[in-house]
């Protein structure tokens, strides 16, 4: 048995694939590429493919991680070609390495870096910038977390935010904002942000939730679309997850 850890991207319109779609895509892509996958035992054998952390529908990424178990002795230098020929271009190979049997990626993961593009109505732009810059000074930032079948829960976000900074304030443009009911023209300014947030099975903060909390603190509700792009995954102590054993 050999365990391969692979870093890959998820970009373009394929950011709309859900986690289960990605699982299927990998299973089938690797089968197409004749990679000798190992299977779980039992009634319903599944190839051994384990992802670090599901990426929300609509988020793109340049640094996703997955581990696959293949037969010992398979020439893993073929992996890049397998991606080129059997995967869509939007799910591209970045690098891989052989790892010793270790803890699962999911249990090792602690943090993620994100690039955020936040489109804020021009009128609220200044207060949005202030809210972002003022975040470190806040004692508390809470959000209501809704989960299916459970009661809404108020959660404290601050300890989960390790970094949120404004990279750039883009030009103001007039844009069509579409909802199911109507399309309206609004002037928006684009704020480019960088965030490091808790991510993983222990504690997880989705950029959506954070930005919605900030938006509502300045009186915006659902009028500020957010584009999320993940750039790095880390383990304990901020070590690059790709390198960890």
């Amino acid at each position, binding site marked *: 048995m050999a365990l391969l850890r692979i870093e890959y991207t998820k970009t373009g319109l394929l950011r709309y694939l*859900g986690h289960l779609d990605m699982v299927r895509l990998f299973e*089938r892509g690797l089968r197409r590429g004749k990679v000798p996958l190992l299977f779980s035992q039992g009634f319903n054998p599944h190839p051994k493919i384990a992802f670090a952390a599901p990426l929300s529908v609509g988020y793109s990424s340049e640094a996703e991680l997955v581990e696959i178990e293949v037969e010992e002795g398979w020439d893993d230098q073929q992996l890049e070609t397998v991606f080129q020929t059997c995967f869509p271009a939007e799910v591209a190979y970045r690098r891989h390495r052989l790892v010793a049997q270790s803890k699962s990626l999911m249990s090792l993961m602690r943090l993620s870096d994100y690039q955020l593009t936040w489109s804020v109505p021009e009128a609220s732009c200044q207060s949005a910038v202030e809210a972002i810059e003022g975040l470190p000074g806040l004692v508390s930032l809470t959000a209501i977390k809704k989960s299916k079948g459970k009661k809404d829960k108020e959660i404290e976000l601050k300890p989960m935010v390790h970094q949120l900074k404004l990279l750039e304030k883009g030009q103001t443009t007039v844009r*069509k904002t579409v909802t199911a009911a109507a399309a309206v023209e609004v002037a928006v300014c684009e704020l480019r942000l960088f965030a490091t947030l808790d991510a993983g099975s222990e504690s997880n903060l989705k950029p959506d939730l954070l930005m919605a909390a900030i938006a509502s603190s300045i009186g915006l509700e659902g009028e500020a679309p957010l584009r999320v792009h993940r750039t790095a995954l880390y383990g304990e102590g901020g070590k690059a997850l790709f390198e960890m054993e």
Partner: protein
Amino acid sequence: MIIEKLDAILDLVEKPARYIGMEMHSVIKPDNEVNVRFAFAFPDTYEVGMSHLGLHILYQLINKEAGLQCERVFAPWPDMEAVMRSADIPLYTLESYRPLSEMDVVGFTLQYELSYTNILNMLELGGIPVLSADRGNHDPVVIAGGPCAFNPEPLADIIDLFVIGEGEEVTLELLRLYESIKPNFDRNAFLKQAAQIEGIYVPSFYQVRYNEDGTLAAFEPLEPGVPAKIRKRLMKDLNQSYFPDKFIVPFIDTVHDRAMVELFRGCTRGCRFCQAGMIYRPIRERSADEVVRLSETLLSTTGYEELSLTSLSTLDHSEIRPTIEALSKLNEDAKIGLSLPSLRLDSFSVEVLKEIQKVRKTGLTFAPEAGSQRMRDIINKNVDEQDLTETMRQIFELGWDKVKLYFMIGLPFETMEDVDGIAGLGDLVTYVHKRVSSVHKSKGLSVTVSASCFVPKPLTPFQWEPQDSLEQFKEKQRYLKQRITNKKIKFSYHDAETSRVEAVFARGDRRISKGLIEAWKNGARFDGWNDYFSYERWTEAFEKTGIDMDFYATRKRSYSELLPWDHIDAGVDKHFLVAENENAKSGTTTQDCRDGCIGCGVNVCWGGLC
């Protein structure tokens, strides 16, 4: 550009990956290599449409031809429709992201009548006039095919031309014809030439006259040289016919998310209610070697983990045993599951199950179709209680404990006693389970008895028979609900109202398109989906347009009546259908025509095929 607009709206809709295309083995040719753009339009969701074998066959067939590009389009779910309308995004294809109006030919597949409102909606969303008469030289040609095209009349005002029968050859002939006259395209000239191709029906070249009582008086060609009867197309030899070596592999879960290989076309059993069994005659098999070769190729190009052997009655293939043996051997290492769409009630089915489902004990589905022996003789479903008892005993001994039994209510000449037989068979199954003693027998047992409402279909021996009224259906459903008290049996039944609307369209004529358009204008779409079907909307639409639903659904026709689809020639003789209707009345069964020809007429048209 549509693709840029998409980027801004897909966050707003459920299951956005339905609308992006880009799957493995989808085909996108550079613009300068495309002479004719054809959109394969499936009037239902992406998940339903992508499960349809015919789409995969035609898509790859057309795309392997130089100069032709086949694209795909599905019906957007109402949430997406709302967003598209507000953002001014026309319905587009998943390949070139062009609006439908920029296609040369748009081809709808007609799999079920309740998808017709989606056709209108897709045309309008795609920027194409809904009525054929309103389209000009710059609009695409709108064509349709599939099983419901065997009664094309309800869509005669909407579709420019119909393809009757199997589409492989004739679609290419049509697209090449289009290509040849595209430089000076003229709609009328195109339609005239197309009408000369066998299997093509151009409804605007014919006129219908009616009697005072509303029945048809005459159906006449208006154009010189168009055929009085349109004979269906069929592929004579499946081993020589095109079958794709790759399928588009969807990203999202679809209804049938697996590789499919077609074993044969047609069916020899002759069940009298079954339209597919009549219109796809005669039976044509693909050889075991070819099936195995195609399966290997498809699994390797798609990466699928499951293979389905599809046909109307898969286990009837004459080489089914060696085929399944070869495939299960082949698949053992690669952990590929084999699935069969239909099981018969006999010991052979059980043997096959043992072979292919060594480990998984999923639910099994059987279709006795009717509850009493009398009724099964009437519909010519040649299974008896003994078959059912034996098959159940064997599967219970092997450890299966979930069984689903399909029945129909409202079959011609049905009495309450026959309906009662449905409950009786359910009880019988639980009784058989009780008596089985086997180490593998599971303690739990769950039997689902499902009853759908019979819809009489054109070109079957029951094409003259009345459908039950809503009251009759409901009475029968009520009866069964009360009668089935057995705790191990779950009774489920279909909505009678949807079956009634389906029946109106199944045997409708040209006049009912007014009702269709009216219902669509009032918001009807996705009528096959319970959440969206509204019976009131349909009754109002028919009332407003002066259409009497009973005339189409519950009226008994005489053998001498001119039927709206009489100009469609499926190869099966009307005399044969009459004889089979008479046999039904007297409860006389007819043999499977594998055991000897029963003279349905198909071999007169295509001698040598059977």
